[in-house]
């Protein structure tokens, strides 16, 4: 009976002019475009330069800044107040002012002052811009000191150089970090959203009631709604592995079956969550809105975009109750660090807990509402 019901679900799904295509387009879209669009690397920072020195060093500095690739010289102003206007008119994000006598000071005293003014309306861009620029100037500083040390017999100032080494993601590539997390979002949408909407849709159309007078047992009916989306979820997950392999050259450092196992538990949890919503919602509109409410909260609290540890304390406490958080951790750890089963016990514990909790709630709320 279950097999027959699942067959019917698939037949309806495939007959839908829209949904199968969307289910295939969705992972492609999310995995291919989202890491590019939601990239936190800041590029194309517009800079206005006020060069009051016109020396060879100031030209060298300018060359160095532009060759970094992060900056775009939008304007060269003759004085600061004029430069400020470019920020006001939003033509520039940042002003670099080189004072008169920059070269002279450098040679004579080995120090010179520069001024960076940043438009902080876009906070991220401002902060990243000024930090990139400081780094470049520092670099420039070092090279000049070395150069001068050769010409003039000045004492080398002892200095530290900090070299960072990035473990697990050596080039700090954004997609490496984002793509595994986005897979979790895909699973949430396909295995949590779609079956719940399907059930509410049948409720709205009245076919659910028609099914309720048949001898088909309720658990069978619900399983027949969930299993197709579980299957689709696994297909999409596998597809995502392929896409990330091909387009980002990303393969899990750990065992892929660890991911599948966790995905299964996660799918149980999130489809249980969907069932809870389908019990409380009588119309598609209600269900959609409840879904959006929770999923947007989940996504922002899960550490998908911003690390949970940098959230305020209340948010960190709240994020304990976000199932997505654990699954994202699992995927990132397996993909980047190659964590095995033993390293993921905490996540396992929480995900199993969520699966049990949501499904029990679904059963209880079903009895209560009906």
């Amino acid at each position: 009976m279950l097999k027959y019901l699942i067959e019917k679900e698939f037949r309806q799904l495939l007959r839908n002019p829209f949904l199968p295509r969307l289910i295939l387009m969705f992972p492609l879209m999310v995995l291919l475009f989202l890491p590019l669009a939601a990239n936190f690397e800041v590029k194309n920072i517009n800079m206005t330069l006020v060069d009051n020195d016109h020396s060879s060093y100031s030209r060298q500095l300018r060359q160095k800044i532009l060759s970094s690739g992060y900056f775009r010289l939008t304007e060269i102003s003759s004085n600061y107040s004029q430069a400020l206007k470019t920020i006001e008119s939003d033509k520039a994000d940042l002003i670099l002012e080189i004072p008169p006598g920059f070269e002279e000071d450098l040679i004579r005293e080995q120090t010179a002052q520069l001024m960076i003014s940043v438009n902080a309306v876009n906070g991220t861009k401002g902060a990243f811009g000024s930090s990139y620029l400081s780094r470049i100037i520092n670099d420039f500083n070092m090279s000049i000191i070395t150069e001068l040390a050769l010409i003039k017999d000045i004492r080398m100032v002892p200095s530290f150089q900090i070299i960072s080494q990035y473990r697990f993601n050596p080039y700090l590539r954004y997609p490496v970090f984002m793509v595994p997390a986005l897979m979790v979002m895909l699973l949430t949408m396909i295995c949590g959203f779609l079956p719940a909407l399907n059930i509410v849709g049948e409720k709205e159309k009245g076919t659910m009631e028609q099914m309720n007078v048949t001898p088909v047992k309720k658990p069978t009916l619900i399983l027949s709604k969930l299993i197709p989306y579980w299957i689709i979820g696994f297909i999409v997950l596998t597809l995502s592995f392929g896409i990330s392999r091909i387009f980002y050259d990303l393969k899990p450092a750990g065992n892929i079956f660890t991911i599948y196992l966790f995905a299964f538990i996660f799918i149980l949890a999130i489809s249980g969550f969907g069932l809870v919503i389908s019990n409380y919602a009588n119309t598609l509109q209600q269900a959609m809105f409840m879904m959006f409410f929770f999923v947007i909260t989940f996504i922002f609290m899960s550490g998908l975009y911003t690390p949970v540890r940098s959230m305020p304390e209340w948010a960190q406490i709240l994020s304990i109750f976000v199932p997505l958080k654990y699954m994202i951790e699992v995927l990132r750890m397996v993909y980047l660090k190659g964590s095995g089963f033993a390293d993921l016990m905490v996540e396992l514990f929480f995900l199993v807990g969520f699966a049990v909790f949501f499904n029990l709630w679904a059963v209880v709320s079903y009895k209560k509402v009906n």
Partner: protein
Amino acid sequence: MAESKYQMNRIMVQGHNIFRKYGKVQALSDISFEVMEGEIFGVIGPDGAGKTTLFRILTTLLLADQGQAMVNGFDVVEDYTSIRKKIGYMPGKFSLYQDLTVQENLDFFATVFNTTIEENYHLIRDIYVQLEPFKSRRAGALSGGMKQKLALCCALIHKPEILFLDEPTTGVDPVSRREFWEMLGKLKAQGITIIVSTPYMDEAEKCDRIALIQGGSFIQIDTPENIKDGYANPLYAVSSESMYALLKDLRSCERVKSCYPFGDAHHVTFFDDSFTSEDLEKFLQSKGHNDNNISKIRPTIEDCFMNLSSPGDAS
């Protein structure tokens, strides 16, 4: 209450003091009735009277707050699984899979009831032949009358002993309505007990017995004939040139007990039988109505319903 005119050997459906509330609204109060094997039992009443609620309780979709109901000898709460195998339910709203074809829908409902179309084809043959030309069309693309026929087929495919039809003819054209009732007659002949609800009073005449329902209570249960015979006062149909003025004047007359507009004539009763149609004629002429047509008529179910349901009137 029960009449011996029909072969009533077995009680198929039984309700006993059923109450059901939705929030503060009392949807059903103190409903008790019996339906015998092989009869067509009509539940007649306006929208919102509680027909669908009663059907949902009997089809095990809804729990009553109080009272018991038995279907085919099974309790609707304890033995709901046994009941579901024995009943066919056709909800008021078309609720088959619109994205499956006619054939697929029928196959689907046969399979979920562990049977096949071939096994019970004799039950649906008459209806299905009309659907056959459209069998590969999606249910959503059928006309209203065809949808209705398909729904009936799907409700019949597992050879139910009792058929629950909740307003099957609402929104269906008059020809299809008549056809539908003819089909019900054939099903009855096959021994299927049918419980049908309708807001149309004219369909009541086609039932073996009817229950008039209003405001969540049954106001009378009997055969249509008995209900009509029980109409207390002589009933007159009155018409004239100006129907609206006539209605107002009739209602102003202190001897007139009730007056309802019924299509081409007003149906009028008097408080006592000493007031005759001649007296009425005189009264109407005094009000300036000429060309009056007054005739004594046999009441319809609708008259009975209006009479029984009018407030402050216990006849």
